[in-house]
């Protein structure tokens, strides 16, 4: 195991724990308050803060003498570097000029983080300038130096220690607060990074299973397409031979045989239609539908669709009306639009009880869309079902004992075909009052690349 544990155990330099600019401001005002200079060094001896108060003239004058300059540099070096122990107490440094410095380590968690140097100040007990200063140069002007020295604050040693202790307490709180904020921020980031990583892993797993589901769905569509085709071939023969028998090609038939053959043919046609729908949806899902656009009279398509469902509607006792009005010709796939209208009209018949009415109307939606509405006075659809009405296999009544038959493919096919034209489907409905299904088609056929596959059914097929 590596020896690089968490950031919580890291030891940080003083600069990382303090906001240096704000800290310098605090040092400045502190120095001004007590009228004594202040320096702060980090553990490596780098100067972080340097505030000078009152000593500029005095030290400046000494600095003009070569020997004074030399001794000054030596004093500053000692104050900065000499060992001062690891106890929270001050060490005094005597300057050859008679001034004094106090230095104390900055301790945090038992570690020395740096040191604070308080000074220079004039010790209370200094009576006159020391010989060590007077002797730095033959032309040293003691009177001038004394005059400059009065600008530096006189401090009793005990007071200096108290002031320094007070400052160390402030530094301690600032370092502690800085450390606390740093840990809080880092921990936040670490925690978020960790959560993010976990979420990413979960996302990856979800993407994987989504990919697998998509593949399964594609296999299902392929299977349906193949099976529908395989089912249709023998069924065509069943219907064809029944038709031939009905036409007497196999010899004369009794009335009963005719009736039975009629039923076989009718049910065969139903089955064929269902299989065709499944084939359509499989093609749509596999993205294999191609539109054959031509100039189409929408009024004619509406009349065709109504004619198709009229016998069934009459049998159920429904009133059917078709009011195309004056319509422009549109660019569309004739067979597909007709099938859409037949599907909508058949649904209207299926869900409208005896005595109801079905109306097929159309209108131009400026600038360039045509809307065809199929309105019924049937049982309607609850609002909660509306969003999923056009999904494949979706049935409002999904129970096995439901009243209305169907595979749940009609509306899904309508939606796919209309969207392939660059149009849209809409529904308005009120339970037990009726529904209006509308298809909006562009008058100038838009070229939609291939076809938009319909959404796959979210839950398992019901009903």
């Amino acid at each position, binding site marked *: 195991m590596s020896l690089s544990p968490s950031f*919580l*155990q890291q030891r940080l330099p003083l600069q990382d724990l303090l906001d240096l600019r704000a800290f310098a401001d605090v040092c400045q005002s502190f120095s001004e308050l007590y009228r004594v200079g202040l320096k702060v060094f980090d553990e490596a001896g780098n100067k972080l803060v340097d505030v000078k108060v009152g000593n500029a003239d005095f030290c400046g004058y000494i600095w003009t003498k070569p020997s004074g300059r030399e001794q000054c540099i030596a004093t500053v070096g000692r104050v900065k570097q000499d060992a001062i122990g690891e106890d929270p107490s001050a060490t005094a440094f005597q300057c050859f000029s008679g001034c004094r410095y106090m230095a104390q380590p900055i301790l945090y968690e038992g570690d020395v983080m740096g040191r604070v140097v308080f000074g220079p100040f004039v010790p209370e007990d200094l009576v006159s300038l020391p010989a060590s200063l007077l002797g730095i140069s033959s032309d040293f002007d003691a009177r001038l130096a004394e005059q400059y020295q009065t600008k530096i604050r006189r401090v009793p040693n005990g007071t200096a220690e108290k002031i320094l202790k007070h400052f160390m307490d402030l530094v301690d709180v600032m370092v502690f607060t800085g450390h606390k904020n740093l840990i809080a921020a880092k921990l936040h980031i670490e925690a978020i990074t960790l959560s993010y990583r976990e979420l990413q892993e979960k996302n990856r797993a979800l993407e994987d299973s989504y990919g697998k589901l998509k593949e399964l769905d594609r296999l299902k569509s392929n299977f349906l397409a193949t099976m529908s085709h395989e089912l249709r071939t023998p069924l065509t023969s069943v219907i064809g031979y029944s038709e031939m028998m009905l036409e007497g090609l196999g010899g004369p038939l009794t009335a009963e045989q005719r009736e039975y053959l009629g039923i076989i043919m009718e049910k065969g046609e139903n089955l064929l239609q269902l299989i065709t729908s499944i084939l359509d949806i499989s093609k749509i899902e596999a993205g294999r539908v191609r539109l054959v656009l031509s100039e189409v009279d929408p009024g004619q398509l509406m009349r065709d669709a109504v004619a198709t469902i009229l016998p069934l509607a009459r049998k159920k006792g429904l009133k059917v009306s078709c009011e195309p009005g004056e319509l422009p010709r549109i660019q569309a796939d004739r067979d597909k639009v007709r099938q859409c209208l037949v599907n909508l009209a058949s649904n209207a018949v299926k869900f409208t009880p005896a005595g109801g009415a079905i109306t097929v109307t159309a209108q131009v939606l400026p600038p360039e869309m045509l809307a065809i509405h199929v309105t019924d006075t049937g049982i309607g659809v609850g609002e909660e079902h509306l969003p999923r009405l056009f999904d494949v296999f979706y049935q409002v009544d999904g129970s096995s004992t439901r009243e209305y038959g169907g595979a749940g493919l009609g509306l899904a096919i309508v939606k796919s075909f209309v969207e392939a034209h660059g149009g849209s489907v809409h529904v308005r409905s009120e339970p037990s009052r009726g529904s209006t299904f509308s298809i909006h088609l562009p008058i100038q056929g838009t070229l939609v690349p291939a076809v938009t596959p319909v959404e796959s059914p979210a839950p398992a097929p019901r009903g």
Partner: protein
Amino acid sequence: MVQFNAVTREISIKVVYYGPALSGKTTNMQALYQRIDAKVRGRLMTLDTKDDRTLFFDMMPVFFRTRAGVKVKLKLYTVPGQVMHESTRRIVLQGSDAVAFVADSRRSEAASTLAYWNNMLKNLEANGLDPRTLPIVIQMNKRDLEDARGDDEISDLTAAIRPPVIGAVAIRGEGVVETLYALVQRCFRSIDKQFGLETKWQISEREFLDKIFAHVDMRGFTPPRPEAPVR
């Protein structure tokens, strides 16, 4: 994971107090803060953001210098107890050298205690720590409450599991020093065994414990007689 710095001669050790929410981890830390002399410990840092409660942990450093001049820093942490702070818990647990599991002894808390125990084992393993070799001490806290498990149950528990079990009423400071003592002792032995504290760094178990516990208010607690380390 204990850090050694051969240049500065420093050793840094991490000890974590783990357990369900409200089991008394912070109370332990506060009691220790009161009982350990400020000479050998730093401030108690509490990251407790009431508004969004994203963070919640405590940290207190304890430090000393050995006769051989080695600086030892022991950092005590608590993890956030709330279930939602799983990621923070895992981060704090990273690189632990010893763990105190603070449990609420009440029978009503048994299920949540067990869940957190398993959660801890999971997080230890996620951090590459082996619960079978990591020093762990269990503190059965809140022994003064009505529903608390009895002494017989505690001794049954002691007999059944490897980590030592220590009863406590942290709010009154009872058992808190005992827990730390047991923890630090095991921690020393574990690190000594792996890295040779005594042979390479000239720190004996006695000195290690004395350097800390000479500065701890030990009222009501007699440390066990020094014994040969057993495994």
